[in-house]
């Protein structure tokens, strides 16, 4: 593994009529207005839009505005992934579509044991979006990149007619470097492995759901969206991790079933051991949801060799995002199934959730 990436240096591009200054961004915010179709036309308006976004990231490679970014790559294997973000509402307690787009892709890389190197972002913008909203997303992405220590080196914007999109969609792609000797993958779990979960489950899903139109309810919780690669690095240094996955869409239920299926093993989870924060439990109770099927964005599960499970757990707990890490279950021989041992001591299978999250009626 190489050392830490160089701290990005701010590149202040000249902008028109700067007045307002965001405390987290060195670049003054331009005056407001609405995104027009012309912003996607490739002409002067497009250049203005790009000029408005690029400086926020302070990355010299991005600021070159070349057709592709060029990168120095350390030795080892590369991990490469992409993820599209369409979250609604765009901003929610604890984050927004911008921070989510950064952490989501950073974490996908981290789940393969990779340290993230660079991201590219594509924005599909609906005509009529307030430019201030776009600025907010860009500022938030830049802030998330700084927190994760990853560079955003390439990007693209497109504008579609009003009604053809829902505000803004963001797609991020990322590459990361897998240090020599690191071998993790969903198919590598073995019977006897211990299942660790790095933090509370279901937090992001409930935070977003609590702000969705028509479902607004008071819940004292913020999205847990956070970069996980430092946690992963610490875990890999401490012990023998076979498989990693972050329970985003479909929650723990979907992820454990994927891991069980890929490795051909059974997984048993102890209901008692799961960390479900009070507000998440209460919201799930009210809405008729199973916390096991609600998304998180700041925790992951690891299937770990039993001899090093305690060491990985200790390493995780020493990290801020892993403070509530817990041993939640174990891996057995196939067939590929996931079971939950209830508090009463009975067993029930954990199935892959079907369809969208819907509130129940009574």
């Amino acid at each position: 593994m190489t050392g830490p990436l160089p701290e990005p240096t701010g590149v202040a591009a000249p902008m028109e009529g700067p007045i307002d200054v965001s405390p987290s961004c060195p670049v003054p915010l331009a005056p407001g207005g609405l995104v027009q179709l012309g912003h996607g036309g490739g002409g002067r308006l497009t250049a203005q839009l790009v000029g408005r976004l690029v400086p926020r990231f302070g990355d010299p490679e991005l600021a070159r505005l070349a057709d592709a970014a060029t990168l120095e790559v350390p030795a080892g294997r590369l991990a490469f992934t992409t993820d599209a973000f369409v979250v609604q509402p765009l901003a929610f307690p604890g984050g927004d579509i911008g921070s989510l787009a950064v952490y989501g892709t950073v974490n996908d890389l981290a789940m393969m044991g990779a340290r993230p190197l660079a991201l590219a972002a594509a924005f599909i913008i609906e005509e009529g979006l307030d430019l201030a909203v776009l600025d907010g997303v860009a500022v938030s992405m830049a802030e998330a990149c700084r927190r994760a220590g990853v560079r955003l080196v390439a990007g693209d914007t497109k504008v579609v007619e009003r009604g053809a999109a829902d505000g803004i969609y963001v797609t991020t792609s990322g590459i990361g470097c897998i240090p020599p000797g690191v071998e993790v993958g969903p198919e590598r779990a073995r019977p006897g492995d211990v299942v660790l979960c790095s933090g509370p489950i279901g937090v992001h899903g409930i935070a977003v759901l609590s702000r969705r139109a028509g479902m607004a309810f008071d819940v004292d919780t913020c999205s847990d969206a956070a970069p996980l690669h430092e946690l992963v690095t610490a875990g890999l240094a401490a012990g023998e991790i076979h498989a990693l996955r972050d329970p985003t869409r479909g929650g723990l239920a979907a992820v454990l079933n994927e891991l069980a299926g890929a490795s051909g093993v059974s997984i048993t989870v102890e209901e008692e051991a799961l960390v479900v924060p009070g507000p998440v439990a209460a919201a799930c109770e009210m809405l008729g949801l199973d916390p096991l099927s609600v998304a998180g964005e700041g925790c992951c599960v690891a299937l770990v060799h039993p001899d090093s499970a305690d060491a990985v757990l200790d390493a995780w707990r020493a990290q801020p995002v892993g403070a509530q890490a817990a041993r939640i279950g174990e891996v057995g021989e196939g067939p590929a199934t996931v079971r939950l041992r209830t508090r009463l001591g009975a067993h029930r299978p954990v199935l892959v959730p079907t369809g969208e999250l819907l509130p129940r009626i009574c």
Partner: protein
Amino acid sequence: MRFVDEYRDPVRARALADRIAAVLRRPWTLMEVCGGQTHTLVREGIDEVLPAAVELVHGPGCPVCVTPVEVIEAACRIAAEPGVTLCSFGDMLRVPGRDRDLQQVRAAGGDVRVVYSPLDAVGIASAEPSRTVVCFAVGFETTAPATALSLLEARRRGLSNYLVLSAHVRVPPALEVILGAPDNRVQGLLAPGHVCTVQGGAEYAPIVARHRVPIVITGFEPVDLLEGILACVTQLEEGRAELENRYRRSVRPEGNPVARAALAEVFEPVDRRWRGLGTLPLGGLGLRDAWRAYDAEARFGPVPEGTDDGRCRAGLVLAGRLRPDACPEFGTGCRPEHPLGAPMVSTEGACAAYWHAGRPRRPGPGDVAGPVPEAASR
């Protein structure tokens, strides 16, 4: 979580299961009426810790499941009308109508919105006066007061674009039908605690007297259910048949007077067809004449006569005559992704409860192969 955790305490639950075993002298068949109770039973594995001599059959207490196909079809038809916004509880969206469901209507351009309360639908009608907002009102005496309140609120705001398609149903007539059937196996009932929270217990006393069965008003958490079962088998072993309230933290004898007043102002009991049970005398709640201006059936035409669909045996399941996992279609022709009937869709449906608890298909009492017997659509 206070008021929840203490009723999920495994130590208390096991102690109750032991007491049930100690009381039992012979086998008994009980019905838990409410779908919420069914889900707790299978989710927590309570039937695994109960003595085998106590058989639980699942009742008709899932409002989504008992809503007949012609009402869903009517909702789909209304939702497809231009200018209409149909507001529905989420569970109803995947329940198949005759050849479509509300999700498909939405995908085809219909304005179908999921609401958590009928008052949210009133809010939409208020904010979007150019649209006709129809609230698809399903549920028992538990959800009907919220519908009543939404109509009172719509009248207070002077809204003329808020309508209700009422599919509300009443529990007591269904229990009469189940207990009165010649082949009834149910010897004791766990009555639905939430319905009784609204209505009180008075409606159940005549049923106890007429059919000589104990009825125990029961809650929804593991400890609640086990207490209800213990009370019910104790009565049966002692040869008693009484109405007993084992959900006192929520149910008062007189119910909730405010909710009952709202219900009485807006609704009146009407005959209504239930999926699988046929037309039940006074088995539903219809809008009173004074509220005709808010009645979606008055605006868009009445729900036509309907019959139950062939392959789904929901009628037998809802009457407690067929265990979901004994149905020939369970897990093969009928799964949550491709439900044949509502009990596989709703979070409270007995078939969905068995599926999500991972029960394999297991032929047993009430198993029927081949075509559905006439009794299913009686």
